[in-house]
């Protein structure tokens, strides 16, 4: 019925191929989740939360800044909760646009995170009152960060994402190193090297996506 310009074929084969490339690049960019959305909220939570831990509970019981004792844990948990809510919301938005196996994969991965943390917290809570504060902090932080490292590596394997895999491996290594160095230093290492790495990988992947897009879309 309606035969507009768009019903006509492209001018020539080269033009058709360019059209295909452009459209694919534009769609790719538009449906690829923003890497910052999944990494920045957690990165900031770690940098700030573990940073406060280091300042309040430094190596060898040193107090660099005399913050209230409850503050670092409260801030860390609040920021982690906020990050969880945000990434959950963002993931749900994505699944409203695309549905099928990809969405299912994302949902299963999201559930795995929650189950892994809940399971680990249940196990660790049995040590309540048995350890010194410094030791308990090291145990909780070390175990949770170990889970995070594993989850990132698994995510890298699922989506064939080298950046995410490398982030997980790096997190696992610096976590182990921090635990060996001891409480206090562990917090500093998590804040700077692990939290910083999340911000870095999120930024790097975002810039790469933009570069690819500007090359494809022109």
């Amino acid at each position, binding site marked *: 019925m309606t035969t507009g310009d*768009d*019903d006509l*074929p492209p001018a020539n084969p080269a033009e058709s191929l360019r059209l*295909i490339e452009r459209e694919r690049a534009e769609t790719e960019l*538009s449906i690829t989740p923003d890497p910052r959305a999944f990494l920045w909220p957690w990165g900031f939570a770690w940098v700030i939360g573990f940073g406060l831990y280091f300042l309040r509970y430094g190596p060898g019981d040193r107090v660099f800044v005399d913050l209230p004792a409850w503050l670092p844990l409260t801030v860390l948990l609040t920021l982690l909760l906020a990050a969880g809510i945000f990434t959950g919301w963002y993931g749900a938005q994505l699944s409203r646009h695309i549905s*099928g196996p*990809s969405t299912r994969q994302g949902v299963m991965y999201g559930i795995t995170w929650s189950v892994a943390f809940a399971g680990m917290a249940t196990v660790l809570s049995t040590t309540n009152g048995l350890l010194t504060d410094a030791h308990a902090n090291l145990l909780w932080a070390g175990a949770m960060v170990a889970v995070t490292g594993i989850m990132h590596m698994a995510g890298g394997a699922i989506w064939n994402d080298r950046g995410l895999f490398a982030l997980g491996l790096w997190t696992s290594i610096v976590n182990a190193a921090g635990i060996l160095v001891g409480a206090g230093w562990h917090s500093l290492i998590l804040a700077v090297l692990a939290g910083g790495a999340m911000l870095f990988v999120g930024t790097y992947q975002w810039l790469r996506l933009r570069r690819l897009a500007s090359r494809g879309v022109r």
Partner: protein
Amino acid sequence: MSQTELPELDPVIHAQARLRVVSSLSTLRESDSIAFPRLQEILKMTAGNLSVHLRKLEDAGYVEVTKTHHGRTPATLVRLTRRGRLAFEDYTAALRALLSPGQEEQKP
């Protein structure tokens, strides 16, 4: 040296608008669907125009349009069928052959 046969281009895909629709859908993973409004936004087409082209593609068996619900809001999902994906691959292969006929294998 026999003359290379020029491959025929699929008339369903060979219209600019439908080529754009199929190209865009081909980016999705197999069996993934995209919501109609999202596709419309990516392609910057009007809903009416996109519907017309989707119907033609659906008639050819290249796309599948599913009406469903996200919670209580109705949603229309679009995906490329296996047949549509094959047609798209054949189409791009034909274009490449047209651009560099020398590199194409001669068919017996």
